[in-house]
């Protein structure tokens, strides 16, 4: 097949994927704890059509060779784990991690997932759950009749009962990964451990390099809409150019078939 056409086709493919990633970032510009993604482009392998230095005759060599590139591919999507900005909500169960770390969440199948989204609520048993209803790990249950809940910077959860007595009812633990970029997104603001992320190291907030917990505020999405819009323009133009390259190659072949038939 015609390499010129296929090279341009890989460009269209890659720009299309890039656009999907940009759209997803923009769609999540208001998602709590969302981490923006970006595509990593890489050139595809090169074909050596004529080796430089090969013998052109028994006594002479080609002084120049010819290598043809075969296009581009998106080799990875990289998440940007930079801290999002903070928004104050004054809701006692809205928690924000400032610094490294993830909240641990128990999925319905019993396995663990991780999130930066700290907008917790209560279920009908008084358990602290995510907006999707998945309980936090280790589980925290707010007793009936609790007047107020306080979450300390280290994640200690204390409740004031109806009689005015203050008791510690749980502890929010954070997990950290060597390579957070390697975490796998599973939707619902959750990520899970993968072979690339390494295993989670759990600990108390504020200790061993983990971030601290701020009660009453949430971490907003770290999507920079201006950057995304500029990326979108660039992506669109690149798409147009690749499409133009396909049209041109097509015209060349068309010219060939109409004139030599």
């Amino acid at each position: 097949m015609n390499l010129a056409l296929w090279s341009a086709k890989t460009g269209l493919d890659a720009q299309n994927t890039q656009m999907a990633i940009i759209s997803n970032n923009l769609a999540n510009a208001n998602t709590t704890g969302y981490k923006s993604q970006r595509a990593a482009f890489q050139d595809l392998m090169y074909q050596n059509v004529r080796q430089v230095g090969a013998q052109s005759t028994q006594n002479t060599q080609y002084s120049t060779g010819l290598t043809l590139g075969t296009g581009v591919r998106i080799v990875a999507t990289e998440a940007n784990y930079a801290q999002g900005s903070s928004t104050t909500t004054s809701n006692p169960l809205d928690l924000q991690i400032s610094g490294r770390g993830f909240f641990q969440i128990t999925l319905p199948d019993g396995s663990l997932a991780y999130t930066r989204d700290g907008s917790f609520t209560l279920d009908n048993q008084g358990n602290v759950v995510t907006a999707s209803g998945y309980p936090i790990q280790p589980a925290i249950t707010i007793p009936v009749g609790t007047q107020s809940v306080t979450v300390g910077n280290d994640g200690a959860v204390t409740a004031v009962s109806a009689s005015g007595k203050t008791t510690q009812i749980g502890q929010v633990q954070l997990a950290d990964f060597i390579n957070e970029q390697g975490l796998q997104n599973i939707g619902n603001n959750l990520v899970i451990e993968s072979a690339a992320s390494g295993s989670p190291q759990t600990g108390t907030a504020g200790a061993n390099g983990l971030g601290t917990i701020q009660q009453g505020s949430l971490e907003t999405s770290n999507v920079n809409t201006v950057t995304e819009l500029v990326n979108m323009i660039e992506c669109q133009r690149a798409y147009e150019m690749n499409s133009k390259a396909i049209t041109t190659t097509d015209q060349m072949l068309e010219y060939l078939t109409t004139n030599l038939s």
Partner: protein
Amino acid sequence: MDRGLYVAMTGAKQIMQAQAVNNHNIANINTVGFRADAVSFVSQPIYGPGYATRVNAVASDAGTDFSSGVMQSTGRDLDIAVNGSGYIAVMGSDGTEAYTRAGDLRVSVDGAVTTAGGQPVLTESGPLNIPPATTVTVGNDGTISVVPLGLNPIGISPTDRIKLVNPPQRDLQKGSDGLLRLKDGRKAETDPTVTVTSGVLESSNVNAAQSLINMIELQRLYDFQVKSMNSSDQNEQMAEQMMSNAS
């Protein structure tokens, strides 16, 4: 048989290959640190009995465009761009030392620093590894400083230094994996004058306008070749007609 037809055919084929190179550049217009490929035509006379009337045009590598791309600020600590000329040393998939301008680095699970394509970044003494860290900072000269997990920022310690090189451009050539290597297979010397900026990525150096003009030019050249094939065909037909009329 009119052998001019074959000269035009070779021309058309070679121009299509040049178009493929140009399309490859366009496809990589958003690839970080990409260096555009150039192609030129060299004439190759055909020797044989009789006059050397025929000269084929053959597409050849005209090297790589080493001009700088545009610097794009990303704010990510592990994105680095080389200032001016110079390259980051990485290990190619064949285990040899290769050079790239793509500085979108990442840390793998075992602490190895790699490019987005997964090639390990090299120091003077081998692949670069860093301990689990809260923050990773890349200094101007490629020195990596980390705050190990659980330590205060006071615990920041330089761990190693990325190997930065600046061999003469004429000695570099692009391999089939898109990485640059020295033509003679040697390793380039570390150049202490090469500096990097962190939080910035260098874009592809493909010039959109120029690539489009090249594309149009190649298309027209291709049309000429086809036209000349067409003319050869008509000459042949005309000759045939005259011969059949004469008989």
